[in-house]
């Protein structure tokens, strides 16, 4: 049997961080007393009508712009009808055949559509499994009910669980940098569901998909998809078939259980919401949305590669956080004669490590290390004025107290030994002190040189240039 290829699409719900709900004036909150942010509209009293939140529309347009989507000139709200206590009107106002945005792209993944809708209320089931079936009683908290949501649906362009998780991170960073959502998976302001299927590698046809829910971290997203892919592969390899269903991922034991549908028969009876007029963004709203866009991670990664020659993984690390990116750009432009990719390595490598070692509580921009100082440090090392090892010592000092690298080098006496006579003498002494290693190196064991280098470094307290030391040792040994 041909190898089974994974085909994954994601459906992402983003809670918008507007001041008020999607269709009423109730304040948005997280973690407040239950049912304090309610009104006749979001409790669906008789006779109430929805009024769309303009801020939510603007935020959705920003997301649409960031995902390079086409914005519909007139999109339509629909009613999605279903009976459940989390939906007080017994329908959700959503968008159906004409969504706000469609045909976009983020990174390598195509966006099928993005639309506006309202969130359901929160249900708490007492006793039993924590789900409604088998619970003793169920409580409803309407604080969340009516929160503006943007639902983003990708094309099935992802080919592995890790790719899916990686892309979801990019999406989160993108939305976070728009400053339109808290994008907190644990609190549910970012919710990612997977549409998962497998097919023989090379096939163009899509297999039967399942929908995977309740993956409230990127780790769980990856693990859940892995588990589902394994289940589907095993099913097919043992002659079974995949059933279209919705599965609930339990992160505590990694199990997948089929979810009961909200109504036994799944017919939402969509029809255009007669209480709302079509959503027709004005030119001004569209312009405002475009102008509010910062440079987003995907664009930044691309620019770092094209203009600065950074490797994609390093560029992605920098671009994931706009503050880190700004720090890097400032340092790179201050570092004369040092290649940007070297500065990038300092930021993502040594500086990140030094901050972690320092307790990991401060970010790059919060630290005492100024971009100019990092630039100066990178230059000192690049110009071989100090060794790479000394550079790390200086960086530790910068993290601890800030300041100017040159002054620290001076104070700590870390300047590289530039007198070649002095270094030659130290090397000669070291070779003499390690006769066994010297013999082995002469005999062709290149690794044994490390012991001699170590001795030199110990003697010089790391102030020697590693390459130069190597060269001198080999000369001493007549190689």
């Amino acid at each position: 049997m041909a190898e089974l290829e994974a085909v994954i699409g994601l459906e992402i719900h983003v809670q918008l961080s507007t001041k008020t709900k999607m269709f009423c004036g109730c304040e948005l909150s997280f973690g407040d007393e239950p049912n304090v942010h309610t009104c006749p509209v979001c409790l669906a009293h008789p006779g109430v009508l929805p009024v769309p939140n303009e801020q939510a529309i603007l935020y959705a347009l920003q997301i649409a712009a960031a995902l390079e989507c086409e914005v519909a000139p007139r999109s339509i709200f629909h009613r999605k009808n279903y009976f459940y206590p989390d939906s007080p009107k017994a329908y959700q106002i959503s968008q159906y055949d004409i969504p706000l945005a469609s045909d976009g792209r983020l990174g390598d993944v195509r966006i099928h559509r993005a639309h506006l809708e309202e969130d359901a209320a929160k249900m708490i089931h007492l006793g039993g499994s924590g789900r409604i079936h088998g619970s003793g009683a169920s409580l409803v908290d309407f604080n969340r009910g009516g929160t503006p949501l943007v639902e983003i649906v990708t094309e099935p362009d992802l080919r592995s669980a890790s790719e899916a998780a990686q892309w979801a991170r990019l999406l989160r960073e993108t939305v976070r940098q728009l400053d339109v959502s808290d994008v907190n998976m644990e609190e549910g302001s970012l919710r990612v569901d997977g549409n998962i299927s497998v097919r023989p590698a090379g096939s163009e046809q899509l297999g039967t998909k399942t929908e995977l829910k309740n993956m409230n971290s990127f780790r769980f997203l990856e693990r859940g998809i892995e588990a589902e892919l394994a289940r589907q592969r095993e099913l097919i390899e043992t002659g079974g078939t995949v059933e279209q269903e919705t599965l609930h991922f339990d992160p505590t034991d990694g199990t997948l259980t089929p979810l009961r549908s909200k109504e036994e028969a799944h017919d939402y009876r969509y029809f255009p919401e007669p209480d709302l007029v079509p959503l027709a963004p004005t030119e001004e709203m569209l312009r405002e949305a475009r102008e509010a866009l910062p440079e987003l991670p995907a664009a930044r990664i691309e620019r770092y590669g094209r203009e600065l020659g950074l490797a994609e993984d390093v560029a992605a690390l920098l671009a994931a956080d706009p503050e880190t990116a700004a720090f890097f750009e400032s340092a790179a432009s201050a570092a004369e004669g040092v290649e940007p990719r070297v500065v990038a390595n300092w930021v993502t490598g040594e500086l990140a490590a030094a901050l972690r070692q320092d307790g990991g509580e401060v970010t790059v921009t919060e630290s005492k290390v100024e971009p100019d100082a990092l630039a100066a440090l990178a230059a000192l090392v690049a110009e071989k004025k100090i060794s790479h090892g000394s550079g790390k010592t200086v960086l530790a000092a910068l993290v601890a107290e800030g300041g100017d690298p040159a002054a620290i080098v001076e104070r700590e006496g870390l300047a590289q030994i530039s007198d070649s006579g002095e270094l030659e003498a130290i090397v000669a002494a070291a070779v003499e002190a390690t006769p066994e290693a010297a013999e082995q190196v002469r005999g062709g064991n290149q690794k044994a040189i490390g012991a001699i280098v170590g001795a030199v470094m110990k003697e010089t307290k790391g102030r020697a240039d590693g390459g130069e030391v190597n060269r001198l040792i080999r000369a001493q040994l007549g190689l």
Partner: protein
Amino acid sequence: MGELLKLTVAEAAAKVAAGEVSGDEYFEAWREAAAGDELNAYLWRAEDGAGGAEGPLAGVPVAVKDIFCTEGVPTTAGSRILEGYAPPYTSTAVRRLTEAGARVLGKTNMDEFAMGSSNENSAYGPVLNPWDRERVPGGSSGGSAAAVAGGLAPCAIGTDTGGSIRQPAALCGIVGLKPTYGAISRYGMIAFASSLDQCGPLTRDVTDAALLLGALQGRDPCDSTSVGLEGGVEAPSREDLKGLRFAVPSELARDEIDAGVRAVFEATLARIEDLGGEIAEAPLPHAEHGISAYYVIAPAEASSNLARYDGVRYGMRKEGARDLIEMYESTRAEGFGAEVKRRIMLGTYALSSGYYDAYYGRAQRVRTKIAADFTATFADFDFVVTPTSPSVAFGLGEKTDDPLAMYLNDFFTVPMSLAGIPAISIPAGLAEPEGGGPQLPVGFQIAAPAFAEQPLLEAAYALERAIGFEGRPEGAGGG
């Protein structure tokens, strides 16, 4: 006191404004009259007349159809399922009336959720026609019409979805106006069919209708579909119909019209010509499909609008259910009457996946064609005229077993509702019912282009004066 009740609202408001009568005195006189309700017109009556003393309607008592939410005052929409419900907020229509100085005199009986043409679908018993208590007052605003005709209120408001203001006004011998869709806010008006529902006045004469419309109309930020009437509404004063063209739709001249109604209609056409108006037949080729389209669209929207009555948050809840689904089912089985259930079933079916296009989609296309027919007709004509109802008031119980016969009552009123245009019914004379009996009122309907309320009221006023309808039911209080 009796003299006060003879005054029209405009006359009384003028006396209150001039200080000849106090608002309290006027209100109290009507409160006493309303207390003598033998028609089952009221479901709730005000006990005191606290209210505005300023404004164009200072002291004017208004009978309010029980479909308008009134804060702290029982609001049932004629349904068992809202028994005991007192809303936490007041509808915009009622608020605007009270801001103009009017006071709520009582809440009037109606067909359950405005579904009916006879008022026999109220969970609180039928309303009796003040002209003949063996006959229906029409519906669904039957309580409002009977209260005004029966001398239990000087004026009332109702709602019209397919004729629910115009038909009871016709059957009770008063004026009923359905404004353009969007002229008056629907906020706080319990929804039956959201794309058709419109609030309007039921009054003794056209001048009072204009007075109430002036207070009620206006764009409301709580209703996205409201636009108001540009330039407001003035008291009509036109005395002739010179230069105005009236279209009689050829397709609506059907055999089903009672001979007595036809005679009054033709006499009224002659009066229009006497006043200088021109009459001509004009085609409205799709209007005859109005009933079919209406009885798909209205139930479809109703099935969704009424889904919120689930026993969870307010209103009736059937206790003793073992689980959620059983609670939904037993609450709705007991809370809704037969006609409401019939329409929920019809509407649910029409929206079902696989049937949507054949029913709801097609009905909407018919609606578009009917609206286009009117637009074409209004290119050559100022107004379209028809009898309001094919018959005079029919007997209680006469059509309850035949829903289709009942639905045909709306034959002349539904096309205007589907097109969203304004239409008024004025009493045009009396006619003997088919099968004999005392004479009963006949309504004459005039429809105008969207937002042409002022010309419509002017023409209706001129015609009203020429007709000089003085009919009052025997034994009715008031004038």
